[in-house]
């Protein structure tokens, strides 16, 4: 549906639910799907009003933070309402003594980091796409190099406020790190792509900002050597914060991050150098200039690379890199976690994309992991199996049916057409 089919009653209901309601612009399209209206509520209550109005009029709703990852996954089948959460942009409370921060979902991750950084702390989530909001990071479940030491959003989120498809506002978790009262619904929402509920605020545990850090990198000229280096580091006593690999055309590098107290970091970096051999170099600069992915995150439309997320057990690294060599993709990611990203150039013929995906998917699956198309030109998404096999899909559908029985939240964006 588009504006033309959004009837007057629905428009009026949305306008009374939320002060800011606009007709969509070109850039509001969600992976080619033009929304009916763009609504920009200013707080959780208005989000709830919008959701109730949408429910009453049977409108589909796609939540958006700043839209930096809105084309990820499959395109929604419909977007009557584009729910813009960018006005919910406040960092609510940094309780430094308790090592937590509460923030609205539309707040920029960078703003949260600035606020907690002033208190010598950080939210241990790398900003993999510049300009991301907290809600966007949660919805897409992005993670970067530091996941090897501190985990991902699921290890850091301790409380959440959500607005359900029926407009009911609910919370789960709370403001303390340790809490086992009730179901951990926050984890269900992480990575759900806006298909279960609308996140309006979130509370996280924080970590102290390390006083110092050092990257130690070494060139590697075969998949076997990359694995050997990565294994030597993860089984060592240097306590790496990250173990990254960069790979293209049969060779690359492995980079190891150590973070902590100044003197400790110097000693541990020396220990890493000893492990990595005479070719190792030391630097304070992030590898690849800090880019988490081997693709251009600002590209749109057919200018997008086919972007893949590849996972495997740690010992599967060599096999996945070998598959990458067979298929001509470039790879970057966390060898210390078994999460790699690969890219195929935007103009790669469909046949080649399909062949590459099959080959990579086989390598990942042989080593306990999966291969998912994160984003790509529309034609690629239409031609390949974006998600691959999903073992508990029936149970996932049942969860979706409970939270959003009419399938109005980001319909079609997620696994199995959810």
């Amino acid at each position, binding site marked *: 549906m588009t504006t033309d089919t959004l009837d007057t009653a629905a428009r009026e209901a949305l306008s009374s639910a939320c002060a800011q309601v606009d007709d969509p612009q070109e850039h509001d399209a969600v992976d080619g799907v033009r929304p009916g209206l763009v609504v920009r509520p200013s707080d959780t209550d208005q989000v709830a009003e919008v959701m109730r109005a949408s429910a009453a009029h049977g409108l589909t709703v796609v939540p958006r933070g700043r839209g930096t990852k809105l084309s990820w996954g499959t395109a929604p*089948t419909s977007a009557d309402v584009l729910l813009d959460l960018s006005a919910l942009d406040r960092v609510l409370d940094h309780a430094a003594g308790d090592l937590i921060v509460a923030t609205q979902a539309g707040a920029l991750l960078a703003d949260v980091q600035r606020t907690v950084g002033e208190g010598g702390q950080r939210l241990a989530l790398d900003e993999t796409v510049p300009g991301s909001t907290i809600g966007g990071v949660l919805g897409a479940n992005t993670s970067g190099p530091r996941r090897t030491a501190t985990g991902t959003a699921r290890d850091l989120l301790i409380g959440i406020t959500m607005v359900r498809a029926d407009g009911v506002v609910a919370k789960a978790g709370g403001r303390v790190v340790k809490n086992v009262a009730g179901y951990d619904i926050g984890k269900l929402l992480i990575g759900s792509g806006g298909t279960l509920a609308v996140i309006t605020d979130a509370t996280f545990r924080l970590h102290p900002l390390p006083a110092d850090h050092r990257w130690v990198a070494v060139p590697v000229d075969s998949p076997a050597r990359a694995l050997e280096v990565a294994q030597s580091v993860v089984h060592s006593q240097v306590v790496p914060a990250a173990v990254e690999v960069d790979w293209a055309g049969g060779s690359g590098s492995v980079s190891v991050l150590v973070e902590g107290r100044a003197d400790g970091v110097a000693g541990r970096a020396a220990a890493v150098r000893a492990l990595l051999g005479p070719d190792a170099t030391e630097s304070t600069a992030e590898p690849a200039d800090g880019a988490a992915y081997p693709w251009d995150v600002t590209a749109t439309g057919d200018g997008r690379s086919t972007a893949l997320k590849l996972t495997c057990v740690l010992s599967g690294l060599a096999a996945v890199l070998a598959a990458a060599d067979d298929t001509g993709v470039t790879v970057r990611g966390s060898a210390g976690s078994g999460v790699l990203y690969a890219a195929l150039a935007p103009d790669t013929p469909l046949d080649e994309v399909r062949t590459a995906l099959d080959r990579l998917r086989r390598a990942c699956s042989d080593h306990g*992991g999966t291969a998912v198309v994160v984003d790509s030109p529309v034609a690629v998404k239409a031609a390949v199996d974006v998600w691959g096999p999903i073992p508990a899909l029936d149970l996932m559908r049942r969860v979706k049916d*409970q939270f959003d029985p009419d399938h109005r939240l980001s319909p079609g964006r997620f696994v199995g057409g959810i």
Partner: protein
Amino acid sequence: MGDATQGTSTTSESSGLDSTGLDSTALDSSGLDSSGRIAAVAEVARRLLPDAGVITDRARLRTYECDGLAHYRVTPALVVIPQDAEQLAALVRACAEQAVPFVARGSGTGLSGGALPHAEGVLVVTSQMRAIREVRRDDQRAVVEPGVINLDVTKAATPVGYYYAPDPSSQQICSIGGNVAENSGGAHCLKYGFTTNHVLGADFVTPDGDTVSLGGAAPDSPGYDLLGAVVGSEGTLGIVTSATVRLVRLPEEVRTILVGFSSTDQAGAATSAIIAAGIVPAAIEMMDALAIEAAEAAVHCNYPDGAGAVLVIELDGAAIEVEQEYAEVRRLCDDHGAFEQRLATDPAERALIWKGRKSAFAAVGRISPDYIVQDGVIPRTALPEVLTAIAELSGSSGVRVANVFHAGDGNLHPLVLFDDEIDGAGEAAERVSGAILDLCIEHGGSITGEHGVGMDKSKYMPRMYTDEDLDTMQLVRCAFDPQNISNPGKVFPTPRLCGEVPGRHKGAHPLQEAGLAEVF
């Protein structure tokens, strides 16, 4: 597992769908034919299991009447002890077909009555599923069955330089299956997190008896993080039959320090200073004078004389880093009035320091005939205020309270002491115990940090969560267990009727159909 798991899901789903009298079948298991339905499950069990795996004798059933929270007792109608996942799934399927409630039990060490049996239900005991299937050093993973004892995972991994991090006090006897159900913590979760951070994958039997694979050995499986919902769901969503867990590298250096202070205020201030200095110790545990007295009486742990509070602080990691943190922690403790600091110089000394702390619950039995172990959480900075309020509660009621807690993360374990022989003493203790939970909630904390809600605390859930919050949690319950047969009556004060049974909207985009506006 494939063919054994497919058949009945449609049966149980449709029995829910078709049932206009759904509420009576789903919620009231005391229907006329309850004993007949139990008999039907028992018959399936006898076909599947050796004789020892099916218990119907009343006297033997009674040995399973409680878990670690012994003041709730219910004799189950039937106990089954499957030996593998296929048997377990078949038993659950039999329960689903008969709409008979089932409760999973590992070692039965839980402290909230989570494994309390159902009088007209089946207790599924996982103690015979005890294989550690794989220890994969290269992948930092182990694959274990639910009956495996927590500490045995560490024992299996230690030879290759690894361990399993979550370490509840009961780790010598508690099972991984129980840990997964309760999302168990432990003294070291300040730095390393809880069970949920260490379980990456699971084979899982749904309340329909289907077996599904959740998560995996590699991270970030696509789709909803169902495993994240299952861990900590206290057996209300189904039963885990195998868990893939993270193994953590044994640290190069561990330093355990016992620090004596004259008051809990000083010890609390020292804790805050350590956290503010950007140090995350592996553990910071606090005990007050009464808890110290009990521990001394029980295990002669030789804690500092005359201490009003002790901290047990453990630092671990790269040796060079630990060395520096240790110097700073010593200095901060001195600054905040520590009168004695004792570094364990060998494993035996370290073990003795921990023995005092880990035996504290049981030790309280030395100074009081009866006691309640409470488990609440507060933001750590509220510690002085809350401890003062607990002292006032204790003073005004005359009920003694010993305090043991994970000071680093604000998880309190007040031990409320009483003598059941004295009229009204038990009730007075219950009141103080409940008032402590209210204090936790008032300060933005939680009614349970690691022991779970179970049977014991479901009545407190509405104090912490709104009706809407609880209703939203019930959506998850209804997705997994529309018949409400998986550990019913636990966690939630009032179950939701799962009237909207899943599966109605199988088409991908029902919204493009006409007539949507009338749905609500």
